[in-house]
C-alpha cells in the first residue's frame, strides 16, 4: 500500500500550465527522488503535496486518505515534514529555538488549545519535546552550534538545521527540496548519509528533489523525471538513466 499517491495532478498559474496530469505513488520507507530541468515543476509538485498550492485538477492521498481539503498546517500535523529550496528558517532565532518550533508542532495549535497551554499535560509535553530536541541535535551532529543564531551559520549548516527542525516534527514523510544545493562535496556526502540514516533508523519515507545526479543515483530507490510539467519517466535510478526520453531531454537541454 502506498503511503503517498498523487493522481492526475494538473496545476496552472494564470493560463500557464505548470503540471500536467502528473501521477505517481510513493511506497513506505522508500527514498523517492524527483528530478528534471529548471522550471520543470518539481517544487510545484512538492507544494501541491504540502498543501501550499491547490491543484487545478487531480488529488493527493496520504495513507489512502484524501488530503485535498486539508490546509498546509493540517497536512504538516498529519506527518508531512518539509524543507525548502530557499531555506525557510527563523534567522534571528537560535538553532535550538528553531528546532524547538519543530517539536512544538507535535502539539495541536488550534485556537483554543493554543490559548490554554498551561494544562495538566504541560510537564509531560515539555519532557517529551526535550527528548526529541536532544535526539535530533545528536543525530545531525549540530551540538556545537545549538546556541548560535541561524543567520550566522554557513549555508550548508543552515540546511542541516532546517532538516533538524523538520525531523523534530517526527514526520512520516519528509519532503526535501534540493537538500544539497550549494553544498560542497563533503557537506553533500554528509547530507546523503543523514538522509539514508533517517530512512533506516526511523523508517521515514523521503521524497526529495535534487539536481545532483550522483547523489540521486546513489541513494534513491526510485526516480521520477519531470519535464515542462509532464512525467518523462519513473523507475529505479538505472531504468531512468537508460530511458531514451530522459537522455533526449537532458541532452537537449545541454545543447540549448
Amino acid at each position, binding site marked *: 500500500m502506498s503511503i503517498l499517491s498523487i493522481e492526475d495532478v494538473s496545476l496552472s498559474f494564470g493560463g500557464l500550465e505548470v503540471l500536467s496530469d502528473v501521477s505517481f505513488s510513493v511506497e513506505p520507507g522508500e527514498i523517492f527522488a524527483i528530478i528534471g530541468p529548471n522550471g520543470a515543476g518539481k517544487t510545484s509538485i512538492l507544494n501541491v503535496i*504540502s498543501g501550499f498550492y491547490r491543484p487545478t485538477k487531480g488529488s493527493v492521498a496520504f495513507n489512502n486518505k484524501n488530503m485535498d481539503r486539508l490546509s498546509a*498546517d493540517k497536512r504538516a*500535523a498529519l506527518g508531512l515534514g*518539509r524543507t525548502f529550496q530557499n531555506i525557510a528558517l*527563523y534567522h534571528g532565532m537560535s538553532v535550538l529555538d528553531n528546532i524547538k518550533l*519543530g517539536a512544538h508542532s507535535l502539539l495541536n*495549535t488550534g485556537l483554543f488549545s493554543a490559548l490554554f497551554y498551561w494544562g495538566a499535560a504541560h510537564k509531560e509535553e515539555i519532557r517529551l519535546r526535550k527528548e526529541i530536541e536532544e535526539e535530533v541535535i545528536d543525530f545531525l551532529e549540530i551540538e556545537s552550534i545549538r546556541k548560535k543564531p541561524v543567520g550566522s551559520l554557513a549555508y550548508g549548516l543552515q540546511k542541516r538545521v532546517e532538516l533538524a527542525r523538520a525531523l523534530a516534527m517526527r514526520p512520516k514523510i519528509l519532503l526535501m527540496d534540493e537538500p544539497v544545493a550549494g553544498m560542497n562535496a563533503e557537506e553533500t556526502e554528509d547530507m546523503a548519509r543523514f538522509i539514508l540514516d533517517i530512512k533506516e533508523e526511523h523508517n521515514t519515507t523521503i521524497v526529495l528533489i535534487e539536481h545532483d545526479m550522483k547523489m540521486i543515483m546513489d541513494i534513491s530507490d526510485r526516480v521520477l523525471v519531470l519535464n515542462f510539467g509532464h512525467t518523462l519517466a519513473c523507475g529505479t535510478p538505472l531504468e531512468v538513466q537508460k530511458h531514451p526520453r530522459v537522455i533526449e531531454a537532458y541532452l537537449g537541454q545541454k545543447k540549448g
Partner: protein
Amino acid sequence: MDIFLQLIVSGFLVGGIYALIALGFVLIYKATNIINFATGEFMMIGAYIFYSLSVYLKLSPFIGIPLVIVAAALLGALVERLILRHMLGQPNISIIMVTIGLSSILLGIAEIIWGSSFRSFPALFPRKAIIIGEIVLRSNLFYGFVTAMVVVVVFLLVFKYAKVGVAMRATANDQIAAFSMGINVKSMFTISWAFGAIAASLGGIIIGNIGGVQPTLGHIGLKIFPIVILGGLDSIMGAVIGGLLVGILENLAGGYLDPYFHGGVKDLAPFVVLIIILLIKPYGLFGTKEIERL
C-alpha cells in the same frame, strides 16, 4: 531643574501608557503585517464598555476589566474573521483603507450608543497624589502607568514562553515555515487581532480614567502611530521604548516650548522626531528589515 525632572517623570508615565496602546498596533502587525488604523477606536470602545459596566451596571472593576478583556477579544476576533480574513492577498493599500473605514464605523457606533458628549470615569485608583521628593504625580497617571506596564510585561512573557506566543512569533517570521510546522496560521491571525484589541482597550480604560471618555478618544491612536513606527512596528520592546521616548519628548516640548508658540508643539514633537529617526533608520529603532520570500 525641578520642572525638568517633573516633566521627564510625568512624560515617562504617559509614555508607558502610550506603550500599551502601541502594543495594540504591534501585536496585530507582528503576525499579520496589517497596520490597524482602528486601534484608537478599539481603545475608545474598550473605555466605553468599561464605563457602561461600571456606571450603568455598577460592576466593580474586578469584574468590569475581565469583561472588557473578553469583549475586546471578541471584537478583535470578529473583525478579523468577518472582514480582514477576506482581504488576504489584497493590496496593502486596500487593507489599510479597510481599517480606516472600520475606525469610522466604530466611531459612528459609539456616537449612536453613547452620544457624543464627554463622560468622566468613576475613580479606579486611590486619589492621593504620589510625591517623590520634589516631584508630584497625579495618582491616575501613576497607577495607570503601573497597570499599563504590568499588562505589557504579561504580553512580553506570553510572547516569549507561551505556546501561542511562540506560534505567533513563528507566524510573524515566516508564514510558509509556520504552515509547514503545523501551525494554524489563520487562527494565529485571529488570536493576534484579539490580543491587539485587548491591549488597546486596556489602554483605553487607563486613558479614560485619566481624562474621561468621548467618541473622539480614538484620535489618540494617531499620536501613537509615530511611536509604533519609531519602535519598528513589529517589536514589543520597540513599542515600549518608543512610547517612553515620545511621552517624555512630548512633555518636554509641551512644558518648554508651548508657552512661546501658543501651544501645539506638544503634538508636533513626536512627528518631528519620527521623521528624523526614519531618515537615519528606515526600519525604525528595533524593526526587522528582513524580507521573506516563498
